[in-house]
């Protein structure tokens, strides 16, 4: 299943992109983040969301309809201008990045943007659970479309399902623990949010200097895909949500939530499913670069949204 990558001349090794220490740390962090996500949850939260599902449904479709399509389009248009041995693994990473659910970092940004925090949190949960089905489905569909003439580029869908299932275990653990101790639950919930930011800070501090050469030699097309995924994703989602007559605050919340994907999860999936693969370094490029740039993009978008949300607050008080 992975032999295509063996055949392709790998230019970047796994070690260049992520060291074993970083890998271990990363997996630990993802575990804590997912744990924290679960610790903030009750079954009631799901019931509440189901009673007023419009924002949730729209968010679901932008997350798994729009984002993978965007990743596919960006990769198809720009990446394949590059040599296929390089373009194919990078595109696999881009597709994967576009197909993972929203991350907890989006909740922090929504908080700062004065958006609808409850909606953001419940969307993260919703898309994370659906990831078990939708992430592999999106990868299967767009992967098949992208590599229909080269069956050797098939994406290991089964491995991905297993990885996501494993990642849901801490979510359920978090929910269970929260039931028994509100204190431990609240501490974990808080830690989860901070670790998400910590992960990005860590990446900037260690990964960027070490991979400076890689970053400077990376073609602009890859930058465009990594940055465009978040930026265009938010813009398009906002447009879709507004055209469906969702109010401004909720539309901006859905846009942030959809555009800010779970970068650590994507990287963890790559590490766990493509482990030992010589081209893993190339697959990791888009998820890693996306995770870096999304902080900058989200900060700018958050500042912009905050302004609009504050303005809107004047008009519609009490919007949950």
């Amino acid at each position, binding site marked *: 299943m992975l032999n295509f990558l063996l055949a392709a001349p790998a230019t970047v090794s796994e070690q260049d992109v992520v060291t074993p220490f970083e890998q271990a740390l990363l997996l630990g962090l993802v575990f804590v983040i997912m744990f924290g996500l679960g610790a903030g949850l009750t079954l009631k939260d799901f019931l509440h969301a189901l009673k007023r599902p419009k924002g949730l449904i729209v968010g679901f479709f932008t997350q798994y309809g729009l984002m993978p399509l965007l990743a596919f389009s960006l990769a198809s248009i720009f990446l394949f201008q590059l040599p296929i041995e390089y373009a194919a693994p990078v595109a696999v990473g881009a597709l994967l990045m576009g197909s993972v659910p929203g991350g907890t970092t989006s909740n922090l940004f929504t908080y700062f943007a004065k958006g609808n925090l409850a909606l953001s949190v419940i969307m993260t949960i919703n898309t994370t659970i659906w990831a078990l089905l939708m992430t592999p489905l999106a990868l299967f569909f767009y992967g098949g479309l992208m590599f229909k003439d080269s069956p050797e580029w098939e994406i290991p869908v089964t491995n991905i399902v297993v990885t996501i299932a494993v990642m849901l275990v801490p979510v359920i653990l978090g929910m269970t623990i929260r039931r028994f101790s*509100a*204190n431990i*639950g*609240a501490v974990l*919930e*808080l830690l989860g949010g901070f670790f998400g930011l910590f992960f990005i800070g860590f990446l900037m501090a260690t990964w960027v200097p070490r991979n400076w050469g890689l970053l400077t030699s990376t073609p602009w097309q890859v930058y465009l895909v990594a940055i465009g995924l978040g930026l265009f994703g938010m813009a398009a989602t906002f447009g879709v949500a507004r055209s469906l007559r969702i109010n401004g605050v909720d539309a901006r919340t859905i846009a942030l939530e959809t555009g800010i994907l779970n970068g650590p999860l994507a990287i963890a999936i790559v590490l766990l499913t493509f482990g030992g693969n010589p081209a893993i370094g190339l697959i990791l490029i888009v998820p890693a670069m996306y995770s870096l740039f999304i902080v900058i993009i989200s900060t700018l978008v958050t500042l912009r949204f905050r302004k609009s949300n504050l303005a809107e607050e004047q008009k*519609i*008080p*009490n919007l949950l």
Partner: protein
Amino acid sequence: MTNKPWLAHYPSDVPHELPTSEFRHLPDLIRSAASTYGKKTAFTQVMANGMNGSLSFAQVDQYSDHFAVYLRDVLRLQPGDRVAVQMPNCISYTIVAFGIFKAGLVLVNTNPLYTQNEMTHQFSDSGAKALVVIDMFADRLPEVLPKTSIEHVVVVRISQFFPAIVSGVIRGTQKFWSRTLPKIKVPHVLFMDALSQGSKAFHKQKVDSYLDGLNGSTVAALQYTGGTTGVSKGAMLSHDNLVTNTLQLISMCGDYMRPGKEIVITALPLYHIFAFTINLLGFWHLGARNLLVPTPRPPSNLKRVFENYKVTWMTGVNTLFNALLNERWFTDSPPKHLRASAAGGMSLHESVSERWRKLTGTPIVEGYGLTESSPVITFNPLNGTGRDGTIGIPVPSTDVKCVSESGAEVAVGEPGELLAKGPQVMLGYWNRPEETASTVVDGWLKTGDIATVDKDGFFTIVDRKKDMILVSGFNVYPNEVEEQIAALEGVKEVGVIGVPDEKSGEKVKAFVVAADNPPTVDDVIAHCRKSLSAYKVPSSVVFVNELPKSPIGKILRKDLRAMWLSQQSGSASKTVKG
């Protein structure tokens, strides 16, 4: 009233007169519950994110003994000395308050959100010798303390008595994330150090000796209130006042308050007399588990409390109940174990009480009282005979009447000033004999509220005397107009005041906070025309984001008026803001 018609409407388990109390003073009441309920959880402080800490009855009893020793033995405070306390709802508050009573000292509750001027006034007026303050608000002390007689400062942390790690996380967030921990620039002792010093000097006989010379008529608390004149003054509440009022209220609730079984949510601030007597003293005496919420704003702060605990009782003000009814998480899954709710502090709108009853399936009744009466004067029976829109009937051992300007009792149904007499009426205002003399006459407390009474003895507040609007010689009571507007779909809150008018003397002005799908100004006026006489219909309606409120959430009409006045004198473009 001479014939006390309300006695016929007491539920069968409510005594007409309160039996002579077995408690000589508050420390008796505090110790009695501690020995009955011992290891049972007394207080659980719940933060907005669900983090919590708890203490049992025995622990609170023991810690408050230690704090009493600290105050008397270490700080050398003398019986009757005043101790100001300034903190939000937290476990430490309960230990501090009980410790002050046990030390034979006088508690001066102080709003933590007070400005420097307000703090200075209250501290110097009460002559407080010591201050127990939450660290978050201690940054104003360097300016305030020199103008007061405060010699000792004890600093409390919000996360005291939480598990160590949780407490550390909370402090870390306060310090580095929300940056709400200012540097404290005055000499002070940390609360935990004070407790351990008190613990070292503790001796049972010593603590008992503090109560020598203490009796029911000793002042227990100076509870500051604006009263009718606006200058904040301390109502002297005695041990008897507070003990009896606690028992009066509990006796009025009959089987709705089951000893040792209730779980009550305390979202209103304990430094306010309503929560102080009912939630702190009442539910302590009852052996309930008390869930202390540091602040109910925003109302989503209560989400975790309702999720994590089987709340059986709730006290609140109209604003709080209304706010919860506007929260989706609350209406989507209303509390399952709730048995009853009590409203006070301001009038409970019928639209709110109806929605509350419909949503929770449990009774909500309104009571009435003043700081000067510890506070409860009247309460509605919970057994279904309560009447919406009324403040209920006088609690046991209490007499109430409505009188005209001349002091004569008015006829049934006629409005008059409400006067109350009973063991809960304060000793007087601290150092203000003239104001005391004009407020408590022959044992009758003049409330300044205009009320009517029906033939069964149910009282209805028509309005505050000073809030009454005079339109062309006709009395308009803002409550009545507010009630009508609040019932309108899309209205979240409303405040009505009178503003000067050349033609009619005064005219009615409504300030409305909109909910989803708000009505237009014309809708509001048209709605009022249907149910109110023409002179009562607002001549103007303004939509605002927020209304000025007191610490417990009572809408402050005087601040609304001030806001309106400053707007008139200020630039025309200035918008009305909370």
